[in-house]
């Protein structure tokens, strides 16, 4: 009985989601999109890079894939009909590139192989066999799909920040550059930096509240 109820509620959710999707499409058709390759790197490089890293788990390969995506985008820019947003279109290209990448490395080896790749170097260290066993007490931290979506959600919110705030936040939080170095590089003083960090963090929390929690 409970199982039945559960599936019903799931169906309902799906219906609602479908409705919102069609609604989105309608609103998008009204405003046709345009390509603006000069802004691609600034606007989408990090977003695409995160997506690529979560798929190939190697930052060098991911970087190359993003680069190839931009090239392919330029090449087929004339086929762009303006139906999807620029970013959606680029992600679609990147997805093809990821598939191509796996085809290539698999054809190098010839046979269909099951490949296991670990998300980071630290995964390969130590007694990892034991660690692969699910820990019933931590359900959230070890859910890679959810974390991947979370990363994309955060990246999405970062792209909505003012340019300078986004830059400072990325340098501090993601690249973990020291306060002093950031101040020197950008020509600001530390109190300036902390105010910017504060604003970006509150904005990001607000954005995530809306889209994630």
């Amino acid at each position: 009985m409970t199982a039945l109820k559960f599936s019903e509620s799931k169906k309902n959710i799906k219906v609602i989601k479908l409705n919102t999707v069609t609604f989105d499409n309608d609103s998008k058709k009204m405003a046709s999109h345009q390509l603006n390759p000069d802004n691609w790197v600034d606007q989408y490089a990090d977003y695409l890079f995160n997506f690529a890293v979560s798929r190939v788990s190697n930052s060098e390969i991911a970087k190359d894939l993003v680069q190839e995506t931009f090239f392919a985008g330029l090449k087929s820019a004339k086929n762009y009909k303006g139906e999807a947003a620029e970013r959606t279109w680029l992600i679609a290209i990147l997805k093809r590139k990821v598939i191509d990448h796996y085809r290539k490395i698999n054809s190098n080896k010839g046979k269909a192989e099951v490949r296991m790749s670990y998300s980071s170097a630290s995964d390969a260290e130590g007694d990892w066999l034991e660690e692969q066993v699910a820990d019933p007490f931590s359900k959230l931290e070890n859910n890679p799909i959810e974390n991947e979506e979370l990363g994309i959600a955060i990246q999405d919110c970062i792209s909505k920040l003012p340019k300078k705030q986004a830059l400072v936040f990325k340098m501090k939080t993601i690249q973990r550059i020291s306060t002093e170095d950031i101040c020197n590089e950008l020509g600001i003083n530390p109190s300036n930096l902390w105010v910017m960090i504060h604003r970006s963090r509150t904005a990001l929390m607000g954005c995530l509240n809306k889209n994630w929690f």
Partner: protein
Amino acid sequence: MISCEKAAIICNKTQYKEASFIEKLKLQFHFLMCKTCSAFTKKNTEFTTLCEKANLQSLSEKEKLKMKELVQTKR
């Protein structure tokens, strides 16, 4: 006594482990009087763990510049 603005800045510094001992003391003292700031700190810390969990990646400015140049050449 510190203001809420200062408390928020110290709170953000603690997220990056850059607050001094005295600053942390001031912050704790502020919490005794200000529930808003202690609630904010809780949220802020949660946000930090989310960021860590998400394993965010980004390209450095240098790499982006290089990419831009390459994109320009292909145009």
